[in-house]
């Protein structure tokens, strides 16, 4: 059978596919609408999603062998379109199918709306980035400004990306771990959209979109692209694997200008469409039972080169590489150490080692033992690129040597590919690797190596600074002293009071007189409040990734607006009531005693005076005793009062200080600390999600 007749056949299959798709899509839309109208909440908890999703997965695994058996019997798979129908029916009850479709369409809503824009900007930014990395100014690396030299330029194929096609084969299912990681990433993107710019999140969005898009398509097929430098023999290998000369080979460089697809079994139309290969470039391999059995489910794509002067080729390669499940890198002995290949593709894709084959082609050009040498050197280079090699049964890239021309080693590749495709794990592994890469890209905006958060110390210090700003300490001290002063004055001997009063008449009053006369505006030290907030923000944002640190700082600044005014008002309210401080109960007693002492002195003095002027009978003892008691007792009472007043005075002072301090701290907590803590909490939540995305679990935030 030749390729030409084969093409007819595929076209035919395509038509049936299309019809089926529209039908399906309608159905899905319809289901989605009814569900949406049913008032189903947009967001689901992950558990719910999991439980609902499990059913279709089981159904598929049951149904798949059935369908295959069917196809085997009919042979050519012409009626696979019909074969798809019953499969859907066996998946589960109508309800199940409905929920499943609803889910799909929901994903669609989430993804496809911005997908087109996203893809465009992504390729733009990717190419710009790549250019900047690559175009480092050495004379061999200058990228043409005008692009006049474009040998063998072929205008790119106009892509027709139709409405997202529904695979008739059972769609792909990711395992629980990967699914939860994807959910976590979706959640993460949602949580941080307000904090991060869309450019940072675009890669994550792309991974989510691709994961959703891939998931809707066949899980029984594995899309493998053959990529490599110009002249390495990609098309030759492609033809050798297909068994037919599908792709044009030649000495004219670059040969292949547009990707060509070749599918070993039916039901891959959606996948090929996603990659944007038009029907006229889709082929079937040579029909042979053996090859079919071995490579069932393989969709092979022959790519243009990535290193020729035709820039459009490289763009095509970059675009397709993001969409396929696995890649076969074809290198040849002449080009295997090209910087372009290693720096531009292999190193950035090192995480995708598990879905990567590296094939050393054209070993027929090498003399005997040189093949092994070159292969070893290639392995060394790959190792330096950070690509895990799948040796000794470990997961990693498969490295093979072959000659597409003579067929040497082709069997090995076929076998490896067959096994790889039969496992059907490639799409999930690719998405997983994409997820890893996205997580690495997001690492600097989410992860931190330090323990973050507000320590108790920082909170206390903030409260202390606010207290300083309202002058709590000074107010307390002043209150204590005023109390003590009043006590002394009240309990002092009258003579002392008289003297003080006399002195006060000549003492010029300074600040004291204003104390009660004028209500202060701006009694709070603005600069101290500002500094306190700034220090707190610095402490809270220390170690946070830049966007989150900024958010914390903004929250602090927003909270601090109006804080000084609030503190002013509060200080006026929480401060001491104007007027004399309150007096303890023992004061009247002390005052009375002091008065009694004075009375004793006066009585004694009068008595003595009376004797001196002879008014009274001379009796020296009693009046002198009275006077002495009064003279000694007065200061004694004053002294003991002072001692006794010390405790209450201190209590009074600390009480005044505490009231101010607590009021200030409460105000600061409500206005600044709480918003900051909320922001920190949000970050912690996001970081937890990020930990889930990286797959290490929730505890990975601070590693």
């Amino acid at each position, binding site marked *: 059978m030749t390729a030409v007749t084969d093409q007819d056949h595929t076209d035919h299959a395509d038509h049936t596919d299309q019809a089926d798709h529209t039908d399906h899509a309608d159905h899905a839309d319809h289901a989605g609408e009814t569900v949406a109208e049913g008032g189903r909440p947009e967001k689901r908890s992950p558990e719910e999603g999991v439980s609902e999703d499990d059913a279709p997965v089981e159904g598929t695994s049951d149904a798949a062998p059935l369908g295959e058996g069917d196809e085997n019997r009919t042979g050519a798979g012409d009626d696979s379109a019909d074969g798809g129908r019953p499969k859907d029916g066996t998946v589960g009850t109508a309800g199940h199918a409905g929920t499943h479709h609803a889910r799909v369409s929901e994903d669609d809503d989430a993804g496809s709306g911005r997908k087109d824009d996203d893809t465009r900007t992504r390729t733009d930014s990717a190419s710009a980035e790549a250019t900047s990395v690559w175009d480092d100014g050495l004379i*061999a690396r200058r990228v043409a400004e005008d692009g006049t030299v474009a040998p063998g330029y072929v205008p790119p194929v106009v892509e027709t990306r139709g409405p997202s096609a529904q695979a008739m084969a059972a769609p792909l299912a990711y395992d629980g771990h990967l699914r939860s990681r994807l959910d976590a990433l979706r959640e993460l993107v949602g949580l941080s959209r307000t904090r991060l710019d869309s450019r940072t999140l675009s890669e994550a969005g792309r991974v989510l979109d691709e994961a959703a898009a891939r998931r809707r398509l066949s899980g029984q097929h594995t899309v493998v692209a053959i990529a490599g430098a110009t002249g390495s023999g990609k098309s030759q290998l492609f033809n050798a694997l297909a068994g037919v000369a599908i792709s044009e080979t030649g000495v004219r*460089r670059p040969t292949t200008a547009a990707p060509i697809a070749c599918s070993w079994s039916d039901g891959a139309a959606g996948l090929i469409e996603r990659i944007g290969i038009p029907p006229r470039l889709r082929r079937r391999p040579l029909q042979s039972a053996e090859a079919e059995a071995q490579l069932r489910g393989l969709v092979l794509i022959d790519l243009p080169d990535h290193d020729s002067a035709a820039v459009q080729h490289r763009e095509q390669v970059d675009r397709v590489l993001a969409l396929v499940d696995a890649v076969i890198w074809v290198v040849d002995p002449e080009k295997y150490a090209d910087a372009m290949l290693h720096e531009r593709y292999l190193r950035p894709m090192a995480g995708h080692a598990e879905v990567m084959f590296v094939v050393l082609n054209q070993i027929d050009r090498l003399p005997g033992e040189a093949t092994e040498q070159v292969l070893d050197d290639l392995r060394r280079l790959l190792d330096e690129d950070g690509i895990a090699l799948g040796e000794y049964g470990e997961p990693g890239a498969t490295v093979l040597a072959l000659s597409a021309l003579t067929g040497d080693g082709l069997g090995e590749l076929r076998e490896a590919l067959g096994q790889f495709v039969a496992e059907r794990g490639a799409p999930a592994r690719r998405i997983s690797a994409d997820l890893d890469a996205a997580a690495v890209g997001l690492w600097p905006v989410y992860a931190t190596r330090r323990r973050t958060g507000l320590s108790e110390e920082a909170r206390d210090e903030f409260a202390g600074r606010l207290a300083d700003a309202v002058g709590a300490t000074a107010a307390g001290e002043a209150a204590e002293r005023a109390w003590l002063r009043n006590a002394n004055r009240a309990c002092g001997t009258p003579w002392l009071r008289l003297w003080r009063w006399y002195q006060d008449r000549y003492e010029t009053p300074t600040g004291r007189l204003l104390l009660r006369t004028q209500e202060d505006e701006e009694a709070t030290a603005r600069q101290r409040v500002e*500094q306190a907030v700034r220090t707190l923000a610095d402490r809270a944002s220390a170690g946070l990734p830049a966007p989150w640190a900024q958010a914390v700082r903004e929250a602090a600044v927003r909270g601090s607006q109006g804080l000084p005014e609030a503190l002013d008002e509060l200080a006026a309210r929480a401060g001491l009531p104007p007027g004399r401080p309150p007096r303890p109960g023992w004061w009247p007693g002390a005052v009375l005693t002091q008065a009694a002492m004075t009375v004793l002195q006066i009585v004694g003095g009068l008595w003595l005076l009376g004797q001196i002027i002879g008014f009274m009978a001379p009796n020296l003892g009693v009046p002198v005793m009275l006077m002495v008691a009064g003279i000694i007792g007065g200061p004694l009472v004053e002294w003991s009062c002072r001692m006794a007043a010390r405790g209450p005075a201190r209590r009074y002072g600390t009480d005044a200080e505490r009231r101010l301090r607590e009021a200030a701290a409460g105000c600061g907590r409500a206005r600044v600390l709480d918003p900051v803590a909320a922001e920190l909490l949000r970050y912690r939540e996001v970081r937890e999600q990020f930990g889930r995305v990286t797959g290490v679990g929730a505890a990975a935030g601070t590693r």
Partner: protein
Amino acid sequence: MVTLDVRPQLLDALSALRDRVAAARFPLPLAGAPRARANRDELLAQLDDYLVPRLREPEAPLLAVVGGSTGAGKSTLVNSLVGRRVSEAGVLRPTTRTPVLVCHPEDHHWFSGMRVLPDLTRVWVPHQEPGDDLLLPGENPARVLRVETAETLPRGLALLDAPDIDSLVADNRVLAAELICSADIWVMVTTAARYADAVPWHLLRTAKEYDAALVTVLDRVPHQVASEVSRQYAALLTKAGLGDVPRFTVPELPESAWGGGLLPATAVASLRNWLIHQVQDPANRQQTLARTAYGVLDSLKSRMPELASAAAAQYAAALRLTSAVDAAYDSEHARVRGRLQAGAVLAGDALKRWRAFPVDCSAGELLDALMESLAALLLCAVTAADERVDETWRREPAAGAPGLTDRDPSLESAEHRIGMAVRRWRRELEEYAEEEVRDLDRTVAPDPEAVAVLVATALLGGRRARSAGEGLAERIGAHGALRLRDRGGRLLAEHVDRVMHTERERRLAPLDALDVHPEPQAELIAALSVLQKER
């Protein structure tokens, strides 16, 4: 036909230009800076390795550098041209890690000295195993040049086998570019599998830009497809405007291919003859020399302004950074002055103490509180300015230069410096107060500390400390009070200015250390115009 006539003035102008280029620095990480640095290095290498020695000594042998992608068969080609194995060839890529220069024994002295390629250490022994560590520690193993002699080469011609132009090893890449730029004749090697690769085409375009004497070799062409490939290659060259470049085709032969052996003389005869013809025919030689030399001189016309504009961009970026700092500190300075005037210092603790003074608070305590409050005001201004600078700089790519933004350790010391300045002001204020009191001829002299406190309060308290001024006048007389306040106020303004200035300088210090000036731009252009005049 152009010939090479060299006047000493031209050489002087050229070496002046070289010094200017060598002095140009691009420390700020702007978008164009890496490219400018690479251009500068390349230009410098080309001046040192090629242009200056060539103009000084036009009679020196022609140097043909064989360059191309890895695996293009450069070493095999050189070996075949020489007729014996001088350069390692093999199947493992990249093969040539040490460049090899081959010349006639009598030309040896031209290359053994440091006339050309002065950066490369010469080695004489045949290639060492990579394990041998004869190099001194710190010596870059890539920067060596092996000089070989061969009788089979004609006099006046030297061949240089360069590492591949797009090697995985970054050092090799740089070295290859440098070597190719030092050539009189650029021999570009590509293969049947590679002739459409982007890398060799970049190289060819550069050669065209410099108008160097160029020859291309299409190597390793399987004989079945030789004519077709050759035709297509020619078409591509013509399309790129390089149709007149001499083109040689070397077939892929079994005995040569991967053993690193020699191609038969017939395979490379045409190339060999062409090269010999270039060297031995005086007119041809002159033309080749002059073409490459003038090509480089002409290329200066566009390359120097490029460097100059990069230097200008650096200066503009530095200016933007500086003005951001200036603006932030200026506005904070103004704010501090305004708040001093408004009496913001007399708030919080200080205000409470002032209310209690003198009955419940001593002069020392009040003075302490005032000074603390003043220091807090200044510190707040400085950190606010720093924060504003950070915010502005975050949007500037140039602020990413190392050392510009890490200011964390200096914050504590800023507090320390401000504290020092405030304490010094206090001490000076107290001295003034004592002076005033001493001059007073009163029987009961007021306490100097109380006077100092009143002055400080009057200066810092603004409107709400009016009574402090009155109290002061009562104590030391209106005249003395005015004088004291005047002096204290001047002193305060001075100290505040100094603090803000010091902090601004501290912030600008790392930027100043980068030494970005407007002069390089003008100097580069001036050197170029002098050179143009001398030609």
